C-alpha cells in the first residue's frame, strides 16, 4: 500500500511529461515564438507535417515542427521572389532571409543554409535554377501549399509550373 502511494505520483509525473505520437504543440508554444503565425497555423493543419513528425523520436519532434514552419516561409518567400523575377525580368534587390525563432531548434541552421542556398540561385541571375529547386520532387515546393490558409490548394511547385 505504502509502495503504491509512492509510485502513483511518479507514474502521474511520467505520464504528464510523455509525448504521445500524435501530440500537437500549441500555436503559442515556445517552439514557434518569433516565427510567422500563418506558417505555424498551416504547418499544424498539414497532414504531411503530422506524418513527418509521427515517425520521429519524441526528442526530435520540436525541431521538426520548427523546421517545417521555417520551410513553409522559405518556400513562399522564394515563390514570391520567382514571381517578381518573372514579371519584371530581374530578381528583386532585397533577397529573402529567415525569421529567427526565439528558441532555435537543431533544424534552424538548415533553415539558414536553405535560405543561403536559394539566395545563391537568385544571385546566379538564371531564373531556371530557382525554378528547378522549387519544382524539385524532394524539395519544399512538392508539398508546401502556395497560398497561406489553403492546405489542399496548389503547391509551390504547381504555382511555379503555372507561372511558366
Amino acid at each position, binding site marked *: 500500500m505504502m509502495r503504491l502511494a509512492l509510485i502513483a505520483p511518479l507514474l502521474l509525473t511520467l505520464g504528464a511529461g510523455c509525448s504521445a505520437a500524435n501530440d500537437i504543440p500549441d500555436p503559442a508554444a515556445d517552439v514557434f515564438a518569433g516565427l510567422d503565425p500563418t506558417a505555424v497555423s498551416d504547418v499544424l493543419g498539414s497532414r504531411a507535417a503530422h506524418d513527418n513528425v509521427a515517425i520521429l523520436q519524441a526528442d526530435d519532434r520540436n525541431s521538426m515542427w520548427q523546421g517545417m514552419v521555417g520551410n513553409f516561409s522559405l518556400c513562399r518567400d522564394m515563390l514570391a521572389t520567382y514571381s517578381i523575377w518573372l514579371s519584371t525580368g530581374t530578381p528583386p534587390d532585397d533577397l529573402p532571409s529567415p525569421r529567427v525563432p526565439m528558441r532555435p531548434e537543431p533544424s534552424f541552421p538548415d533553415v539558414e543554409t536553405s535560405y543561403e542556398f536559394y539566395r545563391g540561385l537568385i544571385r546566379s541571375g538564371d531564373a531556371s535554377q530557382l525554378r528547378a529547386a522549387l519544382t524539385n520532387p524532394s524539395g*519544399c515546393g512538392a508539398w508546401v501549399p502556395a497560398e497561406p490558409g489553403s492546405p489542399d490548394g496548389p503547391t509551390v511547385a504547381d504555382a511555379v509550373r503555372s507561372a511558366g
Partner: protein
Amino acid sequence: MKASRLLSAGAGALLVLSQGFFAGSASGATESFSKTVSCTNGTYTNVRDWTQVTSGTVSVRQASSNPQIIGRYHLQSSLGNNTGAQNIGDGTAKSFGTLLPATYKTWHTAASSVNCNGSGIGNGNSATTGSVTHS
C-alpha cells in the same frame, strides 16, 4: 583531472564522427550503416543521419540483411522535405534523385511484414547493413 576530461571529450567527438551524425557529405562520399531494423511494415528505423552540404544526387545501397528482408527506404530532411520511398533488396542500390542542402535521416521499414522471429512473439528484427552515397 583535466587530461581525463579531455580524453572523455575526445572520445565523445570520435564516437559522434564514427556514427556520421551531422558530418557534411561531399560529392563522392559514402557513409555506411549497420542497424537492427524491424521486420514489420510500418515500423520505421532511422539507419543513418547525414548532411547534404550542396545540391547533389544520393543513392542508398542495402548490402545485407539477416534474416533477409527487402527494405523500403525514404530520405527525410530536418525541414520536412521527403523523397519518395523505394524498395531495396540485398546487394542493390537505388538513386533518390537530386537533394537540396539540409540534414537528412535515412528511414527504413520492411517492404512487407516478414516473420524474422520463428515461433517467437511478433515479427522480430533483422540486422541490416548498407551505405548512403553522394555524387
